[in-house]
């Protein structure tokens, strides 16, 4: 998928080139990162998304300077920084545990980086005040860090990392310790701070919803590899691999026969014998069989017609929408998500015969 020209023209802030990280030696060696290459643009909200153990935190720690790559290079604005210790990198981190200094006040925590950079106190005072204002913590400046709540600690950690005006801000699952409502608030706050400060944010999370709502671009990782990089829309609507499709949102997998390919689209024949158009994932190697995905909200349950047919197995009401779980006639499950309207139910009950109408542009062929 070609990038829009305006985005393409942006300079690269961080580039990871062919990164390999191996822990241990010999047959018991563990590859935490396996030939990972990522380019993060300036002023971008970039998210590393994946389940725990996928290598996302290792990559983040490598950018911060707490880990060194076994192979490959890390470039900041084109300069190799792989050999620089953390204190020489203009990159700051918001740690998962916040890691606020417990023996210092909120104010002293935020001032720490500026003091270490040797800035004059005439400059530090206003800058700390500005940062505390940015995170709405002006009134608690003299508090000890064990006298503030988790959400406040989160804000202080953010102010502390932003105060020295780093080129890149790294965020290691910073919202995972917050409760649902606070997390939602902080997601919006983080987005606001990123656009206000113009700093490149590299965000690590295992929460796909968080990644979709906040990011400009997402790199989906699994088992030490980057599977797909793209905008939230790319990742959600045009997943390249089964893992990506499965990890992000709910989805339906169908086996189909490839009928014809051309110009980024294909015609596939479903098991029901009906042919539908489908887009093709990058890197797809042509074959007879193909796995296609259809998101539950891109299909409708219909009384008659549709490209697939089956029997309703379960109907679950979710308030905003209803999930209809269907067993297909040719075997296998299919789920349809339908928007609820106030006046009527979805019209299907368990055991009903049902047709599935797949939207014209809904199907995507996976590369694996």
């Amino acid at each position, binding site marked *: 998928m070609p990038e829009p020209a305006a985005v393409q023209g942006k300079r690269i802030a961080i580039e990871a080139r062919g990164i390999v990280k191996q822990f241990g030696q010999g047959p018991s060696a563990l590859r935490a990162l396996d030939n990972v290459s990522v380019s993060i643009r300036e002023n971008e909200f970039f998210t590393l998304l994946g389940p725990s153990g996928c290598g996302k935190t290792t990559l983040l720690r490598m950018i911060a300077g707490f880990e060194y790559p076994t192979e490959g290079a890390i470039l900041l604005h084109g300069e190799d920084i792989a050999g620089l210790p*953390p*204190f020489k990198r203009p*990159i*700051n981190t918001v*740690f998962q*545990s916040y890691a606020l*200094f417990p*023996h210092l006040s909120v104010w002293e925590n935020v001032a720490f980086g500026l003091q*270490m950079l040797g800035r004059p106190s005439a400059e530090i005072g206003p800058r700390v005040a500005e940062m505390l204002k940015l995170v709405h913590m002006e009134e608690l400046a003299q508090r000890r860090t064990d006298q503030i709540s988790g959400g406040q600690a989160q804000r202080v950690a953010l102010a502390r990392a932003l105060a*020295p005006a780093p080129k890149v801000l790294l965020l290691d699952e910073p919202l995972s310790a917050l409760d649902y409502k606070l997390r939602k608030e902080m997601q919006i706050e983080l987005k606001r701070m990123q656009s206000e400060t113009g700093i490149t944010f590299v965000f690590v999370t295992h929460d796909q919803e968080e990644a979709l709502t906040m990011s400009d671009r997402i790199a989906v990782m699994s088992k030490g590899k980057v599977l797909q990089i793209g905008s939230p829309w790319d990742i959600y609507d045009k997943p390249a691999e089964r893992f990506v499709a499965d990890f992000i949102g709910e989805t339906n997998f169908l086996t189909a026969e490839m009928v014809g390919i051309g110009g980024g689209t294909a015609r596939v024949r479903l098991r029901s014998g009906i042919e539908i158009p489908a887009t093709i994932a990058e890197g797809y190697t042509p074959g007879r069989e193909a796995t296609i995905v259809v998101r539950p909200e891109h299909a409708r349950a219909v009384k008659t017609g549709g490209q697939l047919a089956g029997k309703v197995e379960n109907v679950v009401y979710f308030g905003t929408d209803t999930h209809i779980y269907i067993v297909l006639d040719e075997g296998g499950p299919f789920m349809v998500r339908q928007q609820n309207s106030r006046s009527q139910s979805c019209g299907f009950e368990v055991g009903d015969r049902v047709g599935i109408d797949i939207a014209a542009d809904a199907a995507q062929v996976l590369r694996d």
Partner: protein
Amino acid sequence: MARARFDVRSQPGFGTIALFTFVVLYLPIITLVAYAFNASESLTAWGGFSLHWFGEAARNTAVQDAAWRSLVIALSAASVATVAATMAAIATTRTAPYRGLGFKYAFINLPLMVPEIVTAVALLIVFARVKVWTGYSGLGYLILAHTAFCIPFAYLPIRARLEGMDEALERAAADLYAPPWQVFRRVTLPLLRPGIIAGFMLAFVISLDDVVISEFVKSGGQDTLPTYMLGQMRREITPEVNAIAAAFLALSVVLVTIFFFINRKKT
């Protein structure tokens, strides 16, 4: 009827054993302190309340000398031991595990396992040689010996504190442009302070209390308070010894109390 559930806290005889243990532990100490206030010359016959023996002990120049010497040795030994123990603790915790780390750890704590009398005899033999070679026979030998056996006592609480400390704090400091020395000075050291104070006090009390090694290593006229008391026991015993012991006990209790409050405030 169901049988009563087994509960380790309510077994028959526990109360009796506990009471017996406390009596054996504390009755002699209580008696010793009580007789420090005895007006008579006797250790066993009560002759009325008096502070006489405290005054007697305080005026005794031999006691003054020994007490002063004990303090100098304990302060010097505990200080050096605490610095060494802090460095050792950092070296053994702020590192990835490697072959030989367990050996180092055992080596640091060896003085806790070697019988004190063995160390004492060994030091006596070595220092006797060194004294002949150098001609120096001052307090240095006692300080050196005390430092050596104080190190593991200072090491243990400092290491425990370091292990309990979130290493992300040190990483955060490095991330915020603090070079290694500043990370240590601005973050590690302040957070380590309660452990260092605990280590110092433990070392101080252990040094103050030592008899065996001091007895073997000291030159003539270098009595510490405990070796002076031991010497007194061989002659006529008066409640003066009780008075010294009571004062000694009071000092230890005060130190432990201070330590307790410092630690509680920090955590």
